[in-house]
């Protein structure tokens, strides 16, 4: 809100703070100390919210302030309307109910996942005006710039009477939201699973917290990073073998970030077998920035992965993580401390990112956008991009930089940004396309840019079951296109390759097939997996990993 100098003189320099005090006063009658009864949650929100407020509802990959989100959907839209929601993850129906009811009408967000279809409909109906779709780091950055919340709902495991909060394993995004809200005269309402006399540890100091509500049910949490090794295919194992030989071994990658699909789970599960046989223990994959994915257990237990910092936790991994404090970041209370921003930063400045995607075009741009849905980005683009601000060297960074250097005088390193995809997805949909669906999505939802997950000039390698395209070694866009075609298999893009050019690229290493990499296709079967089932993972963990019921096949 812009204010003229005269206006400012009249209003004073603490209008936001005075508004804060007025709101606190209105809500004070509902609170006993800082604690507000769950039954009074709707009244509380009606007291502290004003029309047009910017509101953050904590919604991460794992935990959600679901009770407060549901309460918001029940406030009187006469009293509360026109809110501007600034929220990272839209996952629950209640998140969109507030737009249906007119309680909110503007939205800045990062990721909408399962609500993508409904969000698209609400945008088309004009009930949601989208400011922008961000990555996590961008949205949190804007909390400290032009999108600071007036009110934030956060979720924590436990609180004490003074409002101190314990966030347990899933601290995730809480610190960013808390910091931006509490220090700009915002109101911070915490939904907690329980109120206790003494907290195991203090993650958020009580004097930053305005109100605490004990929710009737523990906050909703989903095991989204659990990949059952039973579903890993031979083709994924083949690609994992190529990654280990053609990337991790070749460049000596020690610090990295893995996506969360089955492709990367396959890599994790052949570290203790295939990579160990190649003598790579201690040479590759030593530090990771990921959630505690259960498929990492064998690599940790066999001494491959030495250190992991996590953006959030994963259901069932709590005890295992707690018992491996040499590897994970653990509080004095003995449970893990996660923090998305720091994890994102560590991943951004790592030597390598590898993850999958849905579509790749001839320049190597990749997108997970599907028509009729607005799903957003999450954190992948920050992991999956060149870190141009990086200055420190490492074997991998320098070697990749050498490959990228086209006769420039000034040497420079290069982060490896790798996309791992099968040439066809389910239903024989080609992954490689001339034109990304993202262009259509831009049209239909009037976005400023096509929603690209990773830009082609950030990507260094594309791995498919056919081979690896090394885009660093391509001299121009034409070579880049042929290198991509050269690993695009039997998709129309792959069939359109110029065989002579691809052969030339192969000679200089810009295209490499399994034979070139010393990968024996006959080994590409599930016998290579260090764990073939969730039960195997439990065994590896010495019984410390306790998988959720739906993953227990015994």
């Amino acid at each position, binding site marked *: 809100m812009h204010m003229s100098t005269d206006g400012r003189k009249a209003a004073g320099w603490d209008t936001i703070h005075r508004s804060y005090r007025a709101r606190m006063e209105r809500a004070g009658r509902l609170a006993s100390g800082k604690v507000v009864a769950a039954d009074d949650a709707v009244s509380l929100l009606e007291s502290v919210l004003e029309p047009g407020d910017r509101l953050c509802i904590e919604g991460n990959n794992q935990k959600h302030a679901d009770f407060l989100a549901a309460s918001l959907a029940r406030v009187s839209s006469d009293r509360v309307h026109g809110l501007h929601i600034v929220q990272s993850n839209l996952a629950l129906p209640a998140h969109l109910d507030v737009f249906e009811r007119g309680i909110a009408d503007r939205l800045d967000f990062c990721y909408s996942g399962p609500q993508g279809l409904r969000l698209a409909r609400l945008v088309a109906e004009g009930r949601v005006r989208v400011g922008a779709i961000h990555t996590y780091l961008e949205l949190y950055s804007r909390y400290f710039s032009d999108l600071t919340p007036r009110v934030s709902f956060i979720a924590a495991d436990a609180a004490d009477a003074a409002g101190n909060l314990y966030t347990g394993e899933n601290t995730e995004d809480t610190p960013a939201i808390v910091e931006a809200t509490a220090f700009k005269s915002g109101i911070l309402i915490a939904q907690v699973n329980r109120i206790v006399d003494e907290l195991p540890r203090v993650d958020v100091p009580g004097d930053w917290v305005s109100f605490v509500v004990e929710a009737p049910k523990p906050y909703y949490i989903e095991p989204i990073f659990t990949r059952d090794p039973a579903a890993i295919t031979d083709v994924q194992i083949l690609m994992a073998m190529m990654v280990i030989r053609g990337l991790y071994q070749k460049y000596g990658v020690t610090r990295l970030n893995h996506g969360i699909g089955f492709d990367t789970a396959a890599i994790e599960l052949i570290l203790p077998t295939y990579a160990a046989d190649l003598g790579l223990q201690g040479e590759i994959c030593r530090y990771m920035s990921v959630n505690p994915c259960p498929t990492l257990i064998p690599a940790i237990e*066999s001494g491959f992965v030495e250190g992991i910092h996590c953006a959030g936790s994963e259901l069932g991994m709590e005890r295992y993580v707690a018992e491996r404090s040499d590897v994970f970041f653990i509080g004095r209370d003995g449970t893990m401390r996660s923090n998305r921003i720091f994890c994102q930063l560590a991943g951004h400045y790592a030597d390598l990112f590898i993850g999958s995607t849905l579509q790749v075009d001839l320049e190597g741009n990749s997108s997970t956008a599907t028509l009729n849905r607005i799903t957003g980005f999450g954190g992948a683009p920050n992991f999956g991009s060149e870190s141009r601000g990086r200055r420190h060297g490492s074997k991998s960074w320098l070697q990749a930089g050498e490959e990228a250097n086209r006769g420039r005088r000034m040497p420079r390193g290069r982060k490896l940004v790798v996309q791992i995809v099968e040439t066809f997805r389910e239903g024989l949909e080609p992954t490689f396309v001339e034109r990304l669906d993202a262009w259509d999505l831009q049209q239909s939802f009037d976005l400023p840019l096509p929603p690209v997950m990773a830009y082609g000039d950030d990507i260094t390698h594309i791995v498919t079951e056919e081979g690896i395209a090394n885009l660093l070694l391509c001299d121009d866009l034409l070579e880049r296109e042929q290198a991509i075609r050269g690993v695009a298999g039997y998709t129309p893009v792959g069939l359109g390759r110029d065989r002579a050019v691809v052969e030339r690229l192969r000679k200089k290493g810009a295209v490499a097939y399994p034979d070139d990499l010393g990968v024996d296709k006959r080994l590409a079967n599930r*016998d290579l*997996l260090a764990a073939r089932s969730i039960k*195997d993972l439990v065994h*590896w963990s010495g019984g410390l990993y306790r998988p959720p*019921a*739906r993953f*227990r096949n*015994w």
Partner: protein
Amino acid sequence: MRPVRRSYDEATARGRIDGLLDAGTFREFCGPTARRSSPHLPALGLPVSFDDGVVVGEGRLDGRPVLIGSQEGGFMGGSVGEVHGAKLTGLLERGLDVEPAAVVLLLDSGGVRLQEANAGLIAMGEIQRAVFRVRAAGVPVIAAIGGRNGCYGGMSIVARSCDWIVVSEQGRLSISGPEVIEAVEGIEEFDAQDRALVWRTMGGKHRRLLGEVDALVENSIEAFRMAVIGWLEQPRPLDLAAVEAEHARLEARLRRFAECRDGLDVWRDLGVERPEEIPELDADAFNAVVASMEERDR
């Protein structure tokens, strides 16, 4: 913990035979080049398999001649159709002619193949009768159960008609699948999504504790091989006295566990000290529990 073992549960039908028999001794009957695939599936627009999902033949195990059949769980759930069933029946009947040290059946089947339901059902009866005939001739029939399908439907009856059964922890042995029970009788009767309940009701460990199977081994082909070798040339009696003893045992079971509603109840009643820990035990630890109970009951 470097996994050197070859997973039995994950291996294909051929892989299981290769790993189980003495190396290089297997000779297949009516193999894929004979192309005896299902005559019924093409009419339904479904793909066939050259061996109709079962591998049968002869070879040596620990130097002794055996006949062996192995169901491919990956093809139509290891289900039994006309050709699949006839191959197993013919294999068992060959046991009458060549009197091997055992007929070994590696089972991995959801039961009758519904796409050729009648033919599959009658084939089950034929397999079972052939089991009884070859047993009556003094040749032991050994069933091994592991793999993704477990052993369900008519095949579960066939399995319990054999002399010996070895199962992996992952193996399940039951006539009706949990999904069928839930679909017909409701989720109150059986919550098929509750996988731990499925294993407590039908899984290898429960079957071993109940006395429905003779051995539980870890999920490795070598462990199955050792179990089967132990039963070569060891037929179990099938006379009136033996069948009456079995009858008394089963009647006592139904009386004793009449009020049980869960595997945990049964195990507690059997005197297992910490029944809730049973599902977490590996094969060795579990077998130690079984051995101590058997010791106590002696």
